[in-house]
């Protein structure tokens, strides 16, 4: 059964560009394929008409390679946590989830991007339903903190939390970085800690080959203030806060979106400092 599968994730055969015997076989098959001159091997069947004979495979036009001949090479950032017996394709997760999910995931299915094929708003609604009962404690705790703050926004009565209220954008939320025109999205459900989130953002913004030429240093400095960028978030009241000060679960219930801000601009943005700054918001879009 294993041999018939083409796209295996991680596991026994070793991830990355490893040197297992299985992989070297692949390599030789690959180089064999590529040594064929382009004209004969990769021939265009321009003569095939649409209304042509169906189900009839033209065996004369070259051997159709099967999975055994043309296996997919291992990709570097393979899903490290997937056990070899899993038959799910080791699809590389999209860049925003490229951090190996160490804290064991419930099933293999949840590791695969875009599967099952359910729209984000539906997923978020499901997540909200499943979590709606849980963080009641967090909400009460947050209420106490808010009373301590000096200049907070005036709250409409309708903002009072109800047990089943929409917990906001848990799931995919937007991330923008100063200086980069195009924003990205990150799935908060895939992370269980600030560290995991920051690493993912590092990979997404600071190390992607397509990004603007900024050779920033390696480990995630977004959280400790030592890089030239700092990670901030907009909470449900529309205020911008530094990421990392509240417990992770509380952060999840209040975050609306993220912004990787230049440290110079973040001066004065203390953890409890509210800044209803609409100009910042419009810059992001």
């Amino acid at each position, binding site marked *: 059964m294993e041999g018939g599968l083409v796209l295996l994730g991680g596991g026994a055969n070793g991830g990355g560009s490893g040197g297992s015997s299985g992989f070297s076989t692949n390599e030789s098959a690959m180089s064999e394929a590529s040594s064929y001159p382009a004209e004969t091997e990769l021939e265009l069947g321009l003569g095939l008409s649409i209304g042509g004979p169906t189900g009839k495979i033209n065996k004369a036009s070259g051997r159709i390679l099967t999975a055994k001949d043309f296996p*997919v090479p291992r990709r570097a950032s393979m899903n490290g946590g997937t056990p070899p017996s899993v038959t799910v394709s080791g699809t590389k997760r999209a860049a925003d989830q490229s951090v190996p999910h160490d804290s064991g995931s419930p099933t293999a299915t949840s590791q695969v991007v875009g599967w099952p094929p359910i729209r984000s708003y539906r997923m978020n609604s499901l997540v909200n339903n499943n979590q709606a009962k849980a963080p009641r404690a967090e909400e009460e705790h947050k209420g106490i903190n808010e009373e301590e703050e000096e200049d907070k926004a005036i709250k409409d009565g309708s903002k009072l939390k109800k047990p089943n209220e929409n917990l906001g954008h848990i799931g995919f939320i937007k991330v923008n970085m100063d200086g980069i025109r195009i924003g990205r999205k990150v799935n908060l459900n895939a992370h269980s800690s600030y560290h995991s989130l920051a690493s993912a953002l590092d990979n997404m913004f600071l190390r992607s080959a397509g990004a603007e030429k900024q050779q920033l240093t390696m480990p995630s400095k977004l959280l400790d203030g030592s890089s030239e960028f700092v990670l901030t978030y907009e909470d449900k009241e529309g205020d911008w806060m530094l990421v990392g000060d509240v417990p992770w679960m509380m952060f999840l219930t209040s975050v609306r979106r993220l912004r990787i801000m230049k440290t110079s601009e973040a001066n004065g943005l203390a953890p409890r400092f509210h800044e209803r700054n609409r100009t910042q918001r419009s810059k992001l879009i």
Partner: protein
Amino acid sequence: MHKKMAFSFPDEVLEHVFSFIQSDKDRNAVSMVCKSWYEIERWCRRKVFVGNCYAVSPRMVIRRFPEFRSIELKGKPHFADFNLVPDGWGGYVFPWIAEMAGAYPWLEEIRLKRMVVTDESLELIAKSFKNFKVLVLSSCEGFSTDGLAAIAASCKNLKELDLRDCEVDDLSAHWLSHFPETYTSLVSLNISCLGSDEASFSALERLVRRCTNLKTLRLNRAVPLDKIANILRHAPQLVEFGTGTYTADVRPDVYSDLAGVLSSCKELKSLSGFWDVIPDYLPAIYPVCSKLTSLNLSYATIQSPDLIKLVSHCPNLQRLLVLDYIEDSGLEVLASSCKDLQELRVFPSDPFGAEPNVSLTEQGLVAVSLGCPKLQSVLYFCRRMSNEALVTIARSRPNFTRFRLCIIEPKTADYLTLEPLDVGFGAIVQYCKDLRRLSLSGLLTDRVFEYIGTYAKKLEMLSVAFAGDSDLGLHHVLSGCESLRKLEIRDCPFGDKALLANAAKLETMRSLWISSCAVSFAACKLLGQKMPRLNVEVIDERGPPDSRPENCPVDKLYIYRSIAGPRFDMPPFVWTMDEDSGLRLS
């Protein structure tokens, strides 16, 4: 040898005849009869449909159809719905709006799907089109309530504002107050996607009260249950209504208020919303159930008994969207109560759970297929399936036009025989001769594609994931499916051979999406070089494809036919395979 026709009609007569021809396909056929028909048709085409916004440029459209009033554009590939298309990929509507603003002051309708719409675009629409009537944004993103405020303030003749499934930056609910007090022409309003916590109820109420032609109103989750009665009271003429959150402390006065107001809505045919449902309030809708043809309970987290009760009250139901809480037992009741059912969608309540949380299996789908003679469209998420069930379904329901089955765990075999589900899906395509759309799942070999290529002659859209053994599978589909327009594939062992052998086929289709498969960069380049009327776009967030060996598979590939040439708005992670160089950075 030009023989003058004795009975050639004056242009006006032909134009009048053409005015009865609405469908794009027919219009396109008409325009190909002869040059003079082409000319007449293009001057009188009022609705333009562009299935892929990059297949043609705005200028080309405007040049050919100088007097259209309505345009529909689609942007991103369908798999963008499941986050497979990275942000920033494209699909910007602004260039279209900018071109049309200059050329078409009389544009009335804009319908967009999966496009990026900015506030700037919305403001330009508001400013440029004096008789603007219809704005339908489906699965769009990139704009905020500020843009909506501009539309509300300026479009005096606006009839329809529909934001279905959009991602809107919810800055403030006060955009609703931007509709002037003199504005009364609203017929349809769908704001169900908006999330703002503070909803401007009074503005909403006033708007509903003065727009006496309002037929469709879909509210968002933020609207509490006790406010609905106030809104509905002023709109007894509503035909389609979407509630906000359907939960509140159980109070008899709120209940009777709601029930009373609902029962006075004699025209109500469609209900939706129902977030956070509390069963106590459900009976309030029983009085309207007998007339309901469409019911969307896909957010209602209520259990099977309550769902069964509800569904049994709706004998005229044609369309039902529901969570799998309905279970097999509920679907059996549906099958016996709703003989007019045409469309059913069953969504999973716990898609990532390791174990099934509800008793919903293939039996439910079998029951509905057997019991509902008019059933033609199905989207069904479940955890197990058998060939036997699929064959039964196919035999009893040959009138399926859309069949989308998602067995949640990839590569799940027939649970009875442990075989692939080739035979089952084969039966579907064999018996359902009018099948236009098919989504596959479960354990599938090349065999299923052989069936599809042989039988699915009317198939227009096929979605494939984690299936097949070799290029043969893809070859069967591309060479056999004559009507194929859209093909989307992910995580299958399909590679260069089938793609290149069927390159000509790709020009007859709208688009092909193929990701996490085995198509090499070399093949992409070759395709791009040899097929100038195809845009071959490689999407790869790992970096430029030429930084890896040529025989390395690309991450994602999107191929579509175009007469506009390669596009210029590609982000850094998209490369187009050009005829000149084979590689061009954006």
